[in-house]
C-alpha cells in the first residue's frame, strides 16, 4: 500500500470514528470505548515489546494518565479534552524515568522492575489522600464530563492516531533498530545505534499513549480510585490483546482487542449469573488461542494466505 493510500484510509477511519458514535445505541458506545481504551494500551504495550521490553507496568501509565487528567481538570476547570496534555506529559515523564532507571535491564528483570514501579505508584496514590483522595477516591467535576457520544468519538480518534503512529513507525528505519534490539542490544550498538536513546524514546512514546487510555477511562467512569486506576488487570489485558491478535504486528493489537471484547461480552452474557464461570470460559478461550494460533490472529491470516515476506527493496 502506498503512503498516500494509507493516509486516505486513515482520514476515512478518522471521519468514521468521529461520526459513527453519534449514530449508535448506547450499548455499542460502551463497547466502542472499551475496545478503544484496550486498543490504545495494547498498541502501547506492543511498541515496547517489539523492542524487547516486556512491560508489566502499564497499569502505572494508565493510572498516572487517569489521575493527572482528573486532578488537572478539577483544579483548572478547563474542558475535558485539555486534560490529555498533562496525562500524556506525565505518562511520557514516567516512561522516561522507567527507561532511565532500569538502564540495561532486560527480559524478566526489566519486567519485574516495571511491575514494582507500577505497584509503587498505586501505593503512593493510596498514601497521599490530600492529593488523590486516597482509598475514598476522587470524583471528576461533573459538568466538565463530556457526553458519551463525544467521549466515544474522541477515544476512537485517539486509537486511529495510535494505530497510525504504530504503522508509520513500523515502516521507518527506526523499526529495524528496535526490532534488532529485541535480539541483542549489544549487537545493535556495534552497528552504531545507541540503544539507550531508542529505549528511552520508545518507552516515552508508549507511556504517553497508555496514559491517554487512562485519561479516557477516568472521564468515562467519572470516578477514580487507586485500586481500579492502577489495577494489574490493565497490564494483563494490555499484553493479552497483542498476544491474541499477533505479537509485534501493527494489526495484531487491533484484532486482538476486538476479539477480546467479543469473547468477554459473550462469556459475560451467557455465563454472567454464575460468577466466575464467565472468567473461566474467557480463560479457556485465551489458552486455546495461544496454543493453536502462536502467531495470533494475524499469524493465522498470514498462514492462510501464505504471503511471502515483505520485500525490503523500498527501504
Amino acid at each position, binding site marked *: 500500500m502506498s503512503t498516500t493510500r494509507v493516509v486516505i484510509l486513515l482520514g476515512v477511519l478518522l471521519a468514521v470514528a468521529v461520526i459513527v458514535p453519534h449514530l449508535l445505541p448506547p450499548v455499542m458506545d460502551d463497547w466502542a470505548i472499551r475496545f478503544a481504551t484496550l486498543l490504545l494500551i495494547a498498541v502501547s504495550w506492543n511498541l515496547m515489546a517489539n523492542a524487547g521490553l516486556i512491560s508489566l507496568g502499564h497499569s502505572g501509565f494508565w493510572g498516572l494518565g487517569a489521575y493527572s487528567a482528573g486532578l488537572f481538570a478539577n483544579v483548572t476547570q478547563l474542558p475535558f479534552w485539555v486534560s490529555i496534555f498533562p496525562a500524556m506529559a506525565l505518562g511520557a515523564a514516567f516512561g522516561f524515568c522507567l527507561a532511565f532507571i532500569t538502564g540495561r535491564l532486560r527480559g524478566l528483570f526489566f519486567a519485574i522492575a516495571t511491575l514494582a514501579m507500577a505497584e509503587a505508584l498505586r501505593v503512593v496514590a493510596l498514601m497521599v489522600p490530600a492529593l488523590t483522595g486516597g482509598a475514598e477516591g476522587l470524583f471528576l467535576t461533573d459538568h466538565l464530563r463530556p457526553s458519551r457520544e463525544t467521549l466515544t468519538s474522541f477515544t476512537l480518534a485517539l486509537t486511529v492516531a495510535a494505530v497510525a503512529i504504530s504503522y508509520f513507525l513500523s515502516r521507518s528505519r527506526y523499526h529495524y533498530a528496535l526490532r534488532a534490539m529485541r535480539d*541483542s542490544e549489544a549487537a545493535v*550498538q*556495534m*552497528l552504531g545505534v545507541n540503544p539507550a536513546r531508542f529505549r528511552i524514546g520508545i518507552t516515552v512514546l508508549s507511556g504517553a499513549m497508555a496514559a491517554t487510555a487512562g485519561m479516557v477511562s477516568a472521564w468515562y467512569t467519572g470516578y477514580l480510585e487507586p485500586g481500579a486506576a492502577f489495577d494489574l488487570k490493565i497490564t494483563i489485558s494490555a499484553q493479552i490483546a497483542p498476544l491474541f491478535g499477533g505479537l509485534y504486528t501493527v494489526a495484531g493489537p487491533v484484532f486482538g482487542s476486538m476479539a477480546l471484547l467479543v469473547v468477554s461480552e459473550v462469556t459475560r452474557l451467557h455465563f454472567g449469573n454464575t460468577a466466575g464461570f464467565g472468567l473461566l470460559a474467557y480463560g479457556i478461550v485465551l489458552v486455546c488461542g495461544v496454543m493453536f494460533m502462536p502467531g495470533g490472529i494475524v499469524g493465522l491470516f498470514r498462514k492462510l494466505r501464505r504471503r511471502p*515476506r515483505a520485500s*525490503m527493496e523500498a527501504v
Partner: protein
Amino acid sequence: MSPAASPPVLELQGGFTGYGDSVVVNDVSISVGQGEVVCLLGANGAGKTTLMRAITGLLPLMQGRLVFRGEDISKMPAHDRVRAGICLSPEGRQVFPELTVMENLVLGGFNKRAREFRQRNLDRVFDLFPRLSERKTQAAGLMSGGEQQMLAIARALMGEPKLLALDEPSLGLAPKIVLTVFDAIKTIAQSGITILLVEQNTRAALTVAERGYVLSAGKIVHEGSARELMQSEMIQKAFIGAIYDGDKKRVTRRERRLAALAGKADHA
C-alpha cells in the same frame, strides 16, 4: 607497508582492560597503519577478543590511550565509534536471526555517515558475497554458519568502515568455507580498507595479514611481519607444539590439513 610510513589509523598505547577486578589485557600497545591488514594472534584465553572489545568500545579501557585517525577515542561510547569508522564483525557472528539478510545489511548501514552510501555498499557486498544476494529475503538465522559469517562481515562493511574489525571470522567453519571467507577478506583488503583481524587460525590469518601481534596471557609477546611470524619458532611452539605433546597422530593429520589450507589460500 611499514607502520611508520604514514600516521597510524589506530593506535593503542599502554592499554589495560578486563572484567571487574580481573585484568585480562595487560599493558598492550598496537598500531594499525592506513590500508594495512594486521592480525592479532593468540591461543584461547589470550585476551584477543577482550582487546577487540576495548577497541570497539564494548568494554572500557582501564588505562591507556586509544587514538583513531588522530582523535582520542578512549572514552567514546561504542555506537559513536561506529560513526567514527570502526565497524566490527563480532565473534560468533551475532547476526539478527529473525531479520532477513537484507534487513541485517540495512541495519549495518544505520549510522549517519554510511546511510548515503547504502546502495553502493549493498552492490559491493553482494558482489563480494554472491551467496547473500541469492538469500536477500531469507531469515538470517536459517542460513548456514558460513553464510552467517559472510553476512556478519557484509553487515560490518555496510557501516562504511575506516577500520574493519574482524573477530574470529573462521570460528566454527568448515575448512573449505574458511577459504572462501579469507578470499573475501583478501578482496576487501585489496580495495584499500584497513583491517584488524583477530584469529586463532594462525595460518589462515597470516595468508591475508601483512603484520601481526602475538598475544599470550594478555600481553604482546611477539610482533612482526607475516613472513617472520609464519617462520617463527615461537609461533610453531605456541600453536602447534603445544598440541604435539598430547596426541601425536591427531596432530599430524591436523597439521597436514592446515598446511593444505595455507597452500590453497596462497594459490587463490
